[in-house]
């Protein structure tokens, strides 16, 4: 199958769902979600039968669009996280309905279910983008969709406030990105990454400052997207205020796509040794600062969503450490493995949080007090997610960190490895705080009934738990899948 069809199919699915929603009247719109999940699952299956050779390499679009193994992997990643986010949205529907100005049943739900599908198409295009024009347009498709999703709860001050913050800072990073692209174009006369890499070695020294200026601006813009220090300040507020499924989507898919773009852009500029000497130390400083900030700022948090926001900054630091160690032969695989593990454990944590938050009405850590007595299965799932995020052996998160540190040691980034190990230890403290609340604290209302879970959410939680343990114990199948 020609890889170009994948995104077209996703966009078509989104349009069909929107049309169907218009005729659905005042209902709970569950059919929209089921159709969306089924459609995305079908497309996910189709990604395994992609034939990159079906794409004409000489065709003009091959300058914009690449269907290499990395792109296919990220497309599957985006589809999978969108499916889980749709399952989450189903559990989150009562909160959305309660925060809509309209009293009509199902008001605003249809778009809430369909917008992630469009964002997914944008993420998939981002995965394939090998040209700055394509990177810009697909990135904006994702970002503008997220503006709407983050500020979706129109009656909730927190959601609107975080939406406004995301809007201003997201647009600011767009400004930096575009201006950076302009300068790189001015120096090289090219937008295509491969063509830029060809031109770079022949450039004279006088052009170097302009080139570095452009690269620096692009790095700032991508730093915003992946939440690397010192451009991480928007993350806690936006993650806390956004609807929980959207927070999960932001922290998993949007971040992963940002990393793939960063990987492609950095690789382009690393062909010149003179640039390499300047870029890698810069990235190393950013990686160290991100690990330290994310993990230390998470320590005093009492809101679980905010805590996960800071922890996601910390995880971005470990991923950056993998990119800094790009010279190691195993580094690319290690970064992708970490991303896959991060997807599983973060989505699991947010899925449990959505369900518990609906029952308790809040997402402070104290709302999870005594969860083990009320719903032992949910408590176990969250326990597994927390252990994996912290990096306890026999979970996927542990192997992810192990591979990254291995690459860093291979490249002799000793300082970063020491910072990494210390911050992982700090991570144990705040992840265990959640576990302590669930297992050792008394519930606020001991007679509360067990929390209800939808059938789809049940299956998803079970699958995610199984995958975390399976990959943690026996990673070979996943490793063989990675490019």
């Amino acid at each position, binding site marked *: 199958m020609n890889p170009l069809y994948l995104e077209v199919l996703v966009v078509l699915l989104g349009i069909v769902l929107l049309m169907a929603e218009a005729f659905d009247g005042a209902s709970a719109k569950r059919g929209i979600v089921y159709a969306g999940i089924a459609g995305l699952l079908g497309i996910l299956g189709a990604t395994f039968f992609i034939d990159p050779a079906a794409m004409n390499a000489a065709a003009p679009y091959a300058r914009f669009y690449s269907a290499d193994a990395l792109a296919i992997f990220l497309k599957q990643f985006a589809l999978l996280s969108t499916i889980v986010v749709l399952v989450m949205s189903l559990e989150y529907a009562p909160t959305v309905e309660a925060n809509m100005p309209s009293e009509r049943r199902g008001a605003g739900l249809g778009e809430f279910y369909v917008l992630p599908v469009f964002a997914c198409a944008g993420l998939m295009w981002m995965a394939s983008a090998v040209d700055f024009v394509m990177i810009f347009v697909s990135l904006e498709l994702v970002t503008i969709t997220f503006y709407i999703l983050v500020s979706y709860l129109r009656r909730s001050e927190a959601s609107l406030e975080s939406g*406004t913050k995301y809007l201003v800072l997201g647009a600011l990073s767009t400004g930096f990105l575009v201006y950076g692209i302009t300068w790189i174009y001015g120096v090289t006369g090219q937008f295509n990454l491969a063509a830029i890499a060809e031109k770079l070695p022949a450039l004279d020294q006088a052009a170097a400052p302009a080139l570095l200026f452009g690269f620096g601006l692009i790095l700032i813009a991508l730093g915003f997207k992946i939440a690397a220090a010192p451009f991480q300040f928007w993350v806690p507020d936006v993650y806390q205020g956004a609807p929980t499924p959207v927070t999960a989507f932001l922290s998993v898919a949007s971040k992963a796509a940002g990393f793939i773009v960063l990987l492609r852009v950095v690789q382009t500029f690393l062909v010149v040794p003179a640039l390499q000497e300047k870029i890698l130390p810069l990235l190393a400083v950013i990686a160290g600062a991100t690990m330290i900030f994310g993990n230390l700022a998470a320590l005093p948090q009492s809101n679980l969503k905010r805590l996960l926001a800071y922890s996601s900054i910390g995880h971005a630091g470990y991923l950056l450490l993998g990119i800094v160690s790009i010279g190691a032969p195993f580094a690319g695989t290690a970064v992708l493995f970490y991303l896959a593990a991060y997807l599983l454990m973060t989505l699991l944590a947010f899925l449990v949080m959505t369900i518990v938050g609906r029952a308790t009405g809040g997402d402070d850590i104290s709302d999870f007090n005594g969860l083990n007595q009320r719903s032992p299965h949910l408590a176990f799932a969250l326990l597994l997610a927390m252990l994996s995020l912290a990096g306890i052996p026999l979970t996927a998160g542990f192997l992810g960190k192990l591979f990254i540190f291995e690459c860093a040691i291979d490249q002799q980034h000793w300082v970063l490895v020491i910072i990494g190990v210390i911050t992982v230890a700090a991570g144990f403290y705040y992840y265990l705080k959640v576990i302590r609340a669930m297992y050792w604290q008394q519930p606020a209302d001991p007679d509360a009934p067990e929390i209800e879970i939808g059938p789809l959410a049940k299956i998803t939680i079970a699958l995610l738990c199984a995958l975390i343990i399976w990959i943690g114990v026996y990673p070979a199948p996943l490793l063989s899948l990675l490019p």
Partner: protein
Amino acid sequence: MPTLGDYLLVSGLLFSIGLAGVLLRRNLLIIFMGLELMLNAANLSLVAFARHGVTAFGLPDYNAQVLVFFIITVAAAEVAVGLAIIVALYRLRQTTHVEDLNRMKF
């Protein structure tokens, strides 16, 4: 006849004015205008680069000019969504000042 340097200087000024507006002003609408200025600074320098980077046939490089159209389109979409969010915020809070956006704290 203005040179490439002149255009880049003006575009740099536009970018700085926009950035200063975003960082210093406290009204969301003014901040949004600053953001648009930053995008237009990029447009100006792209067109200048395209005009001065003449290709083998003596024509300007149209790739950059096409990107300008993409930027204009994307900026329009961003403004449509952005203003809608600001209007929704104003309806709920009766304010468009960033100091009032302080509901979330540690």
